[in-house]
């Protein structure tokens, strides 16, 4: 009985390793195509491919999964922006600047608490339109932050990046509708 089981399990192991050698590469190719096809329909194709390809989860993801990866990018960027805002606030800025920075902090908090949270829930629960709303709103919040500076904005790069990532995310979600 023991010998039989051993032979059986060896056979199992052999069976497992066989497809791994052949199908794997085909699947990688298919997923790379999905990323390209998905990003083709976004306003920032190269950015989209860059972000998606650099996330290991994209190899196994369908369009919903790709959208969730981009939402994660929004989250990461929003956190980074908030860190920078807090840093700038600590450097005792002038009153006008301080007000704008506080407003920006509120905007980026909204991106995290409202847009990102809702987008993830919506994508996971199969009601993608709320995720599209969240992505669109993230772009609006970033623009509002940028507009709150009467002089030069210290967050232009962050706001532009957020706007582009948000627009890309929205375009991916649109493909689910």
């Amino acid at each position, binding site marked *: 009985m023991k010998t039989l*089981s051993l032979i*059986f*399990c060896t056979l*199992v192991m052999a*069976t*497992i390793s066989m497809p*791994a050698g052949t*199908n794997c590469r085909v*699947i990688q190719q*298919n997923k790379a195509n*999905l990323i390209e*096809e998905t990003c*083709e*329909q*976004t*306003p920032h194709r190269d950015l989209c491919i860059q972000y998606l390809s650099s996330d290991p*989860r994209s190899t*196994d*993801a*369908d*369009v*919903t*999964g790709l959208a969730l*990866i981009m939402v994660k990018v929004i989250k990461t960027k929003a956190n980074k922006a908030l860190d920078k805002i807090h840093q700038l606030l600590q450097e005792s800025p002038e009153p006008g600047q301080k*007000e704008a920075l506080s*407003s920006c902090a*509120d905007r980026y908090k*909204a991106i995290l*608490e*409202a847009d990102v*949270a*809702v987008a993830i*829930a*919506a994508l*996971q*629960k*199969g*009601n*993608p339109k709320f995720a*599209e709303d*969240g*992505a*669109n*709103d993230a*772009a*609006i*919040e970033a*623009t*509002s932050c940028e*507009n*709150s500076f*009467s002089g030069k904005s210290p967050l232009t790069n962050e706001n532009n990046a957020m*706007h582009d990532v948000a*627009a890309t995310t*929205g*375009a991916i979600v*649109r*493909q*689910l*509708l």
Partner: protein
Amino acid sequence: MGSPSSSHSELLCSYVPVPDGPHSPAEPPRKVMKVFVIFCGMLVLLFILAFNGDHVTSTLTTTTNEQEFSPRTHTVPCSTLKPFSRGVSSGVSWKSSFNNDESYPWNNTMLSWQRTVFHFQPEKNWMNDPNGPLYYKGWYHFFYQYNPKGAVWGVIVWGHAVSRDLIHWLHLPLAMVADQWYDKNGVWTGSATILPDGQVIMLYTGSTNESVQVQNLAYPADPSDPLLVDWIKYPSNPVLFPPPGIGTMDFRDPTTAWLTSEGKWRISIGSKLNKTGIALVYDTNDFKTYERVEGLLHAVPGTGMWECIDFFPISIKGENGLDTSINGENVKHVVKVSLDDDRHDYYAVGTYDEKNVKFTPDDLKNDVGIGLRYDYGIFYASKTFYDQSKERRVLWGWIGESDSEYSDVAKGWASVQGIPRTVTLNKKTGSRLLQWPVAEVESLRLRSDEFENLKVKPGSVVPLEIETAAQLDIVAEFEIDNKALEMTSQFNREYECSTSGGAAERGALGPFGLLVLANEDLSEYTPTYFYVVKGSDGQLKTSFCSDQSRSSLATDVGKKIFGSFVPVLEDEKLSLRILVDHSVVESFAQGGRTCVTSRVYPTKAIYGAARLFLFNNATEATVTASVKVWQMNSAFIRPFNPNQRN
């Protein structure tokens, strides 16, 4: 009773089955060796399946059907993301200047003004679709999608309120929460059916703990309680699972049931196949077991997912509404859908062939999803019910926000419901529905101001001296002077509200109408207007629009121009009605042939600074206007208190 229908067993091949919850019996222990062998065998099977790629799941995704990949040619519309600068418009007395670069900071004064006083909304947090409206033992019941945790969408439960008159609402405890595995991720939209013996049946969609969309049955715990406070979920829920071939996340929003001539109850549930929106049909005798009716009630290619289907009869001759089960002579039917793709509600009037379970629209060019809309502004997930006490069909609609999430979170709430509207067939124009605010809203009218036969010359703005301007019921009539109509050389222009320049774009015969939520220096105003174009055959074509582009100095709010063509018959004056209730404006043209609802978020035209103006920005036509304006009282929507008179 008994187990769910054959569709249950069919489901196992279309998705990873939902666990049975706490009822699975424990497996008896086996010998270790046999377990090991069987385990290895299952590993083989698993790996074979995995490398075929059909059911790959990752930590990120939920199990879904194969996503059909069809290329779309449009991307996120940029106009909603970047506000565009508008210079000073031509025309007399437009003092507006719009500084694109100023981001207007929101303060509590501005935000708290936005709350409505006579539109239904919960005390706080997020609301979306109307659910299961009904009339029972002297009370109107209203349920709604609600997030008890915040001012954004989330794990949705059913809120509940009651009213004697569809206007004065009293909040009750939540009717249903997400406490079962089959609605753990959301107690979603559903509809009520009242049986001939008075029993109330509620069917609703649950998003299961695995995000599969299933249909569930619920009913009042105590039918003798007119307030229907407590609800029981049928212990053997779900009663319907997504059938094979239908996406597990494309199966939601069951309708009110209607009786077939065979004595069965029939419901429809929306879905999609690739990009074709479809209406599935099920029959049942007891609302517990169902049989899928072969075929589809209706389908329209290219329309995408059909949410919140509504299907009801409409009287061709009479003015009354009809019970959902009515069919026969002098009856047409309406199919209405909410399109996931564009967040708009569409309907079509047509005939229902009961024998073949088929709906055929009167006008194929204006089929469901490509033709008429209930409302050309913000109005979604709408649902009707038959009010047997007044023999009318009443329409509820969700009016979402068009401000930023930042504002929603700051003010602590989001969304309102429209004032319930009666729905009838417009006899004079045929396949178009008329919607009109229920008469009970007029009980809120306080003092009125009347302005008769005001001659408004081209390019002028006329202030209407009323008390305050944030809570109004406005009724107005307009006549264009005949000379201008006959003499105008400009003709045959195509006009579309949404692509036009709004109230600032001057034509020979329009725009003219009212400026609501305007301030004294017109730095903020919201025009609701008519725009008339003369065709090459001399026929007049009228559009009715609501223009948000100058509604606020804030740059993070919606600035679109909503509206559509409105049929105007030979002998008719142009007429409109506008309900202004702080940040929501509902407009109706020609007795409700075309409706436009918008959200308005002024920063200056609030409280005592809000004004009302007549305007005429046409270049040739003088317009004679008669306007009656009522101040509107609050509906004092509040929690139900058993000690108070209700």
